[in-house]
């Protein structure tokens, strides 16, 4: 079956522009996560969606970052007024319910470069 897909795979943008990153989770997975992987660092949690519950936004680094999940499936991560420090690989993952006990399946990531 299809895994987690993300688009675009690469995005180069100019400082100050807005970008949208898309994630299609595995069908039937109710939990969806966004992480950020910066060069030489581990993965940093950004946001978590579970079904129709309010998302856990505790990892978003600033109010320039936002995410939504429409219809309990596809998710979009938006970064407004991008800065050079936003350059990173943005990873999406999904899992069955109860994230603590279920494997998270990761997508290939979107590599964002802010010039």
């Amino acid at each position, binding site marked *: 079956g299809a895994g987690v897909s993300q688009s675009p795979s690469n995005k180069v943008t100019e400082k100050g522009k807005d970008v949208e990153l898309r994630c299609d989770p595995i069908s039937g997975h109710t939990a969806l996560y966004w992480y950020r992987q910066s060069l030489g*660092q*581990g993965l*940093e949690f950004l946001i978590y969606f579970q079904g129709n519950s309010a998302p856990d936004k505790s990892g978003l680094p600033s109010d320039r970052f936002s995410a939504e999940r429409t219809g309990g499936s596809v998710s979009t991560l938006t970064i407004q007024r991008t800065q050079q420090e936003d350059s990173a690989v943005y990873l999406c993952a999904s899992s069955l319910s109860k994230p*603590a006990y279920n494997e*998270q399946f990761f997508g290939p990531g979107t590599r964002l470069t802010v010039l």
Partner: protein
Amino acid sequence: AQSVSQHNHHVILSEAASLELGCNYSYGGTVNLFWYVQYPGQHLQLLLKYFSGDPLVKGIKGFEAEFIKSKFSFNLRKPSVQWSDTAEYFCAVNSEYGNKLVFGAGTILRVKS
């Protein structure tokens, strides 16, 4: 807050050498522990996980990890590495009711053939 530390950022081994990658976490409660691997050009994938029970966990491709609660450790081991084990390895922790994985910085393993 939870944190995970991986002791070595880069490890270089020859084929057939034994491997041990260290992972320590800070969290006083019940935890679930994971090792993920990212092969060159591929997605992150699960290598093994520990939730409860036998603290010695076996995963794919001959890897195993031992949970030592008193040391807050979950070290990854493999008796004999292969060139195909060249990858980046991430240790991760999730609290019992947590929503997210907390990852270590990763260890890049290069196996020389």
